[in-house]
């Protein structure tokens, strides 16, 4: 069994009010290290066996059509053992 991770982030030019809210909350807790925060989504997809190139191509397609909206988001697919 393997886990395929798809990470989805808003594109840099798209306003991220959630990230901004987190960035504003950090200093209130005494954490002063953050210059900016962007918030995204992480999908963990469990698959049976070792992922084949066909399966990865399908996951790529799913990431493009459903898991992310390419108008505002970018995605990254990787396999975790």
């Amino acid at each position, binding site marked *: 069994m393997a886990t395929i991770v798809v990470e989805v982030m808003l594109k840099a*030019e798209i*306003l991220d*009010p959630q990230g901004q809210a987190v960035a504003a909350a950090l200093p209130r807790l005494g954490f002063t290290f953050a210059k900016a925060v962007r918030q995204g989504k992480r999908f963990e997809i469990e698959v049976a066996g070792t992922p084949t190139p066909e399966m990865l191509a399908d996951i790529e397609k799913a990431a493009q059509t*459903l898991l992310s909206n390419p*108008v505002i988001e970018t995605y990254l697919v990787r396999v975790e053992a």
Partner: protein
Amino acid sequence: MRIGVVTFPGSLDDSSALRAIRLAGGTPVPLFHASDDLKEVEAVVLPGGFSYGDYLRCGAISRFSPIMSSIIVAAEHGFPVLGICNGFQILCESHLLPGALTRNQGLHFVCTDQPLIVENTSTPWTSGYTKGDRLVIPIKNGEGSFQASAETLNQLESEGRVVLRYAETNPNGSKNDIAGISNARGNVVGVMPHPEQAIESLTGPSVDGLAFFTSILQSLVGR
């Protein structure tokens, strides 16, 4: 004139939209997300709400429902579609309209009577207005911030496809104060404000929304 309104799981304003069509003089026809049958309607309204819980992204899952596969094909051939609020989000996710609606600037769910300016009266949904008309129509959404690339915004502006613009204040950080747009052909229109909630003085802040529904009936008669 048969005008359909789609009910998705989580739709909220479907009955209001059906009622608005009836008060405008049309025959409202309820449509269901799980069927691809458009029941011989001549236009469709996608109502507000939180379809499929708005999980993943607003409208992202509705886009793949059976009724949407019929609507997408019909819309590409000139069938009139109006998306209100969640309906607008579904139209963007379906790529029938460009851009996307994202979390409001400031993170607030905004529920208010919003002043608007009518920009485009050449669509079948807005032909009853006059360009420059000032309307007051409720908005109620958490993800109504219209975002698009600079190139898309230029195209929308130069082709006159901004249908409604926020007046006085921009409630959510939408680019260019955009409250509603159309596709290139004009048959598909998406608006964040709720015209179906501004059709009677008893329940709405105005009756400024009624002309969306009378416009489509007149456009269909004139065809």
